[in-house]
């Protein structure tokens, strides 16, 4: 089954980001394809490459990069939401792609499921 994910909250402040990751991981383990994670609202803050969490904590940015590099999950960041919040290509994580809401529409259309995580 092909699944898209819409993530609406930023890293660390809300568990949404963690749940989305754990869900994606489990879906892949069960043989499904995660087509893309689309970051919207404060969710765009997941796409900064500058996170430096304490060493004993999870690294949310690196987790998204890993999901992308190992499992070909697209990491798409809404350009309008990103611009107002100060996310641009200078800070973007590897694999991140700043793009329009048209791509979210395509994700919604071409996948069997769109699963939203937020707060």
């Amino acid at each position, binding site marked *: *089954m092909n*699944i898209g994910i819409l993530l609406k909250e930023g890293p660390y402040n809300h568990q949404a980001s963690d749940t989305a990751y754990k869900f994606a991981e489990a*879906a892949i383990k069960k043989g*499904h394809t995660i087509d893309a994670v689309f970051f919207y609202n404060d969710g765009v803050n997941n796409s900064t490459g500058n996170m430096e969490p304490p060493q004993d904590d999870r690294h949310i940015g690196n987790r998204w990069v890993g999901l992308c590099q190992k499992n070909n999950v697209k990491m798409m960041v809404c350009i309008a939401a990103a611009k107002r919040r100060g996310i641009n290509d200078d800070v973007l994580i590897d694999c991140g792609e700043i793009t329009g809401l048209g791509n979210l529409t395509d994700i919604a259309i071409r996948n069997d*499921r769109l*699963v*939203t*995580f*937020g*707060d």
Partner: protein
Amino acid sequence: MLHTINKSPFGSNSFETSSRFFQPGDPILFIEDGVYTVQADNKFSKILAEVQQNNPVYALSPDLDARGIGNIADGVTTIDYEGFVELVEEHQVNSWL
């Protein structure tokens, strides 16, 4: 349709509102702070029991464990992330935020 609820019922009206929209047979999955809803013997136990008459109710066990909720309401099925995926295989998803 699978309904997920991720807010504590004490702080937010998500559970009470969403329950007006559930169709008979729709599975309900509590995640994140939403899992406090299924703790046994709290203020919301009665509404939960009513929902359970028409809807199968699930709660995400990693979230229950994280919050130290061991004593949960009768009839609630605990599942892990894999179980969450299985529900999504069967249903479209409506995430109440």
